[in-house]
């Protein structure tokens, strides 16, 4: 991967929580327009790494570069999708989706217009006036995704976005995410502990070792994206990649 292609680069990241070392010497390049997954056993620091890239956590050592500029905090070119959705429970779907734009001081008419477009795009049309507690988990995460899309960030940071929704909803959501990304052309950094999810969604998979988290391997699934979702799930490359990663991660268990 040529350096000019890198939209996000992390160099020598180390993170200490008191005495505990969560990440050690993590250096990675995230290519522009691709979906990269951070995959590893629980407690390997993958969410920590994502939050450092988001600028929510300061690293103990090392740097993060976005478009060649060093990151010191959150920025408008990065948007976050939260594991627990992080929706305002007192606000409607419309206001939640428009919240990022509201914080930027956009006039109400403009931000609602933009929000409606993305509510449509994630398949929630008709639910603009609903409150989060009236929605299912999957629908709530669609609101979280629409909010992240509405601010026109180039980079989507997704922290186990589907872990709180049931299996069927999850599959449907994964398919919708891929078709959405083929239109929106975003760079996605995606955290998950599901091997199938990682292989199904990713262009590049980063395997992290158990704590302290280090980069243990880079895997390119090499799955042709022009196939349908059901075909992909039966594809030989897909099944081999899942198997291969499982064997690589197995040694970190127990």
């Amino acid at each position: 991967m040529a350096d000019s292609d890198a939209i996000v680069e992390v160099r020598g990241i180390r993170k200490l929580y008191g005495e505990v070392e969560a990440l050690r010497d993590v250096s990675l390049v995230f290519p522009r327009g691709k979906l990269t997954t951070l995959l590893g056993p629980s407690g390997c620091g993958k969410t920590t790494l994502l939050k450092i890239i988001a600028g929510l956590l300061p690293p103990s050592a090392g740097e993060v570069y976005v478009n060649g500029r060093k990151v010191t905090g959150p920025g408008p070119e990065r948007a976050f999708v939260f594991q627990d959705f992080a929706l305002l429970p007192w606000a409607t779907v419309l206001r939640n989706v428009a919240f990022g734009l509201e914080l930027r001081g956009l006039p109400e008419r403009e931000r609602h217009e933009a929000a409606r477009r993305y509510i449509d795009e994630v398949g929630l049309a008709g639910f603009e006036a609903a409150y989060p507690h009236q929605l299912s988990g999957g629908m709530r995460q669609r609101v979280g995704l629409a909010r992240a899309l509405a601010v026109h960030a180039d980079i989507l940071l997704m922290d186990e976005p589907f872990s709180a929704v049931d299996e069927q909803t999850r599959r449907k959501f994964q398919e919708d995410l891929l078709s959405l990304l083929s239109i929106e052309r975003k760079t996605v950094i995606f955290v998950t502990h599901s091997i199938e999810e990682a292989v199904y969604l990713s262009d590049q998979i980063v395997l992290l070792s158990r704590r302290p988290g280090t980069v243990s391997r880079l895997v390119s699934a090499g799955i042709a994206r022009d196939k349908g979702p059901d075909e992909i799930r039966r594809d030989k490359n897909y099944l081999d990649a899942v198997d291969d990663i499982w064997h690589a991660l197995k040694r970190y268990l127990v």
Partner: protein
Amino acid sequence: MTPDRPKIPATFSLLIWFLLWEAVGRAGWSSIVPPVSHVLIAGVEVFSSQKFLAATRITLEAFALGMACAIAVGVPLGVLMGRVESASRILGLWVNVFVSAPISALVPILMAVIGIGQPTVVVTVFLFAVFVIALDTQVGVRGVNPSLLEMAACFGARPHQVYAKVLIWSALPEMLAGLRLGVIRGVKGVVIGQLLVSIIGVGELFELYSRNFLMEEFWALVIAVFLFAFALSEVIARLERRVEYYASTR
């Protein structure tokens, strides 16, 4: 509740107590307990009297002023203690001491410092209400879902936006609970303040009736004050239930 058993309305228990009260009153065991029907008749007379209206006005004035100050001080104090660790360490102990302390014991000292009159009553209401409001606000602010704060930071919220758009709304259920308890304490405060100062408002009437053994008027006034406190706390409780509903997913 099984469907074949009829639901007993809450007013039924009130009716039983009133009947019991009436019977005890009619038996004439004690002049302190007149029959409830006499109390109600005396009530009509008391509540339409010029004296009562004047007392009510001055009492409500002291109550409203004291509560307004308690909210204006208690909410920011609670937010400060909820957000700033050092503030909670310095102030938390005092707020906790005062919230459980018998504030009535301080009223005589207040009288000596501030004088005998309306300001003392206002300060008493303030002291009765402010600490529980501050404490509950602190609990609410501390209970904010951390990922909501991360979300706000991610989308570029400035500090004042975090407060105005996330923290206050998130803490609203606890703040309202504090306000409800504050209002209940404030009613106690206004009556105790006036009783100890004893020359103004409803407190003066209480003093007047009990000293002259006008028990019917005395009980009528007691019922009025009870109803006022209860009605006010019910209004806030209703608001709380609405907010609870909107905040149910956090």
